[in-house]
């Protein structure tokens, strides 16, 4: 993302009746526009060509272990907050071929298989997911060793954020300071108001795109309306994570009996890690062909909840479900802070919703920090 070079014209208003112009402008700049579309009882990232592709007329209702779409008469473009997929898969692909290795004479040749990525605009990225992507960037684009596969995908993303107007029962971004307002890391940020969409640029590319839209300058009133909407969204959040005592308090809770209770419910299925915008564990697999002359090496999403993940030479260091849940939560909320200087949780609530048995980390953490039990 390029920093803004030319002075910004400030936020602009796009009438909702002209919203198609934003899609057209992105497409004319060569972007494949993707957004959340209705799929199998939820929303998934898919091509958005016209406004009617957006899930208008629906809203998502989420609670631990349960996701439902319900009809909504709000007429809003971004009433559905999110689905199981964060934007992670667009940069850290679920399966990424890394190398093609071929035998040649008595040696071998390894050729990197960098992905051919088309320019993609993601429409409707929530603040929590931007925060998650920032964590992924920190991991894969760190220091002198940026991951070229991740980088190739990441550089081709144009991020259109949407500031949240509606919180789900599972949302707790306000307590993690990641939302509901998109703070950074976007090209454009939208706030959906009654009749218009407020558009702001967060990068030079975003600003250049804004120039292509028939925006009217936003007066104080819509700006105040947008702020009020986000403030109400933050206030309506019922879940929160109290992180003030972390990381130490969770290290101190290493032998807490609550781990046994949550382990009795946990399926070790790994769903929480798959839907988490920050989980980055992966394994590398070889796929040799029958003639044993060539093999493809690929990186695939892995999870700390699998048996294979805890296996080191000679033994499994995390055989029990309790070991795995404790490893995950302690890393996510505590050792992540030591490792990366930030929490591994962005408050999106996906691990709460998509846990098949509805385990809720906002319930587990206070129980684990309760010394009386």
């Amino acid at each position: 993302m390029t920093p803004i070079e030319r002075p910004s014209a400030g936020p602009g208003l796009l009438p909702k009746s002209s919203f198609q112009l934003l899609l057209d402008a992105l497409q004319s700049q060569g972007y494949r526009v993707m957004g959340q579309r209705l799929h199998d009882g939820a929303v998934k990232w898919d091509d958005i060509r016209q406004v009617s592709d957006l899930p208008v007329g629906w809203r998502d209702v989420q609670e631990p272990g349960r996701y439902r779409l319900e009809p909504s008469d709000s007429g809003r473009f971004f009433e559905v907050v999110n689905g199981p997929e964060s934007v992670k898969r667009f940069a850290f692909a679920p399966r990424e071929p890394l190398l093609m290795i071929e035998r040649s004479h008595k040696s071998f040749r390894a050729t990197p298989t960098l992905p051919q990525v088309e320019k993609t605009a993601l429409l409707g990225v929530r603040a929590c997911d931007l925060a998650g992507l920032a964590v992924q960037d920190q991991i894969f684009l760190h220091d002198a060793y940026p991951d070229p596969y991740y980088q190739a995908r990441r550089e081709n993303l144009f991020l259109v954020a949407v500031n949240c107007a509606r919180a789900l029962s599972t949302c707790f971004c306000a307590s993690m300071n990641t939302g509901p307002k998109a703070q950074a890391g976007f090209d454009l940020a939208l706030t959906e108001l009654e009749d218009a969409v407020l558009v702001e640029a967060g990068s030079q590319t975003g600003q250049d795109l804004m120039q292509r839209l028939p925006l009217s300058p936003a007066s104080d009133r819509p700006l105040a309306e947008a702020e009020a909407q986000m403030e109400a969204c933050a206030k309506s959040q019922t879940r929160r994570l109290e992180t003030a005592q972390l990381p130490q308090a969770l290290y101190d809770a290493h032998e807490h009996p609550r781990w046994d209770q949550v382990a009795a419910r946990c399926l070790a299925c790994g769903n929480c890690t798959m839907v988490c915008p920050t989980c980055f564990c992966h394994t590398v697999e070889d796929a040799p062909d029958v003639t044993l002359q060539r093999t493809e090496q690929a990186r695939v999403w892995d999870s700390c909840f699998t048996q294979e993940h805890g296996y080191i030479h000679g033994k499994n260091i995390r055989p029990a479900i309790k070991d795995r849940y404790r490893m995950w939560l302690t890393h996510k909320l505590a050792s992540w802070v030591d490792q990366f200087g930030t929490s591994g949780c962005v408050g999106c609530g996906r691990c709460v919703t998509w846990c098949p048995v509805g385990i809720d980390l906002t319930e587990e953490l206070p129980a684990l920090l309760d010394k009386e039990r």
Partner: protein
Amino acid sequence: MRQRPSAKKTKAVGRPTLGVFKFASCDGCQLSVLNLEDELVALGQALNIVYFPEASSAMQDGPYDIVLVEGSITTPEDARRIRAVRERAAVLITIGACATAGGIQALRNWADVEAFKRAVYPSPHYIDSLTTSTPISEHVRVDYELWGCPIDKAQLLRVLVDLLAGVQPRLPTQSVCLECKRQGHVCVMVARGMPCLGPVTRTGCGAICPSMGRDCYGCFGPAEGVPAGPGLPPNTTSLATRFHRDLHLIPAEVVRRFRGINGSAKPFKDESHAWEHKGCDE
């Protein structure tokens, strides 16, 4: 994890020999071998397929470097035959739910087989069968187990290629959910309230059923399970409790959920037993 044999370590001269044997089964897993259409010629060049009655009338007695066994043990004759097969096999791999866990026919283990015989056959005394259907591993040592009804042909190919390469085959034990999420399918349990067995079922199928909007019925058998013990996966109890309390399956339905194609696999068997005598309010 003990070191297991690989085909290269046997004393084979030239191409390793392969034998494919059938016991009580539907032949679907053997067909999966033949369905490897793109790779079959190359596989036939890498391996010497010397016993495969489903595919060829040329049958050699062995010994074999690699043996694939389909089907479960349901007759006294089969119980004898599998020992003879094992003696001639350097590496023995079970293919499919029948050979690995007893298969759908293991439902007989909960039923009166004599009554079945009388109901089905005019002259039941001609039928010489055991009262149980048991996996190959209850009779002889098994080196590798491929789950599934049927097996995944790509997984079979990987195992054979690994053996040819002289490395230990990788057989994932993790849940179906990981693959389901990697492929980006919406969870049928969370979004639609279907009693999916994916969280406690071994991956390998490619998450076929959830990709079609159907709940997994566990044809790849329990996830993990070795070692077994309290607090170790698969946590069938938690999933079964969710089915009953929140998805409103009555105990008899919970029993049927776990007592299917792999109903005799221990974690599924134990869970079905636990729900057999429960009332609806428990």
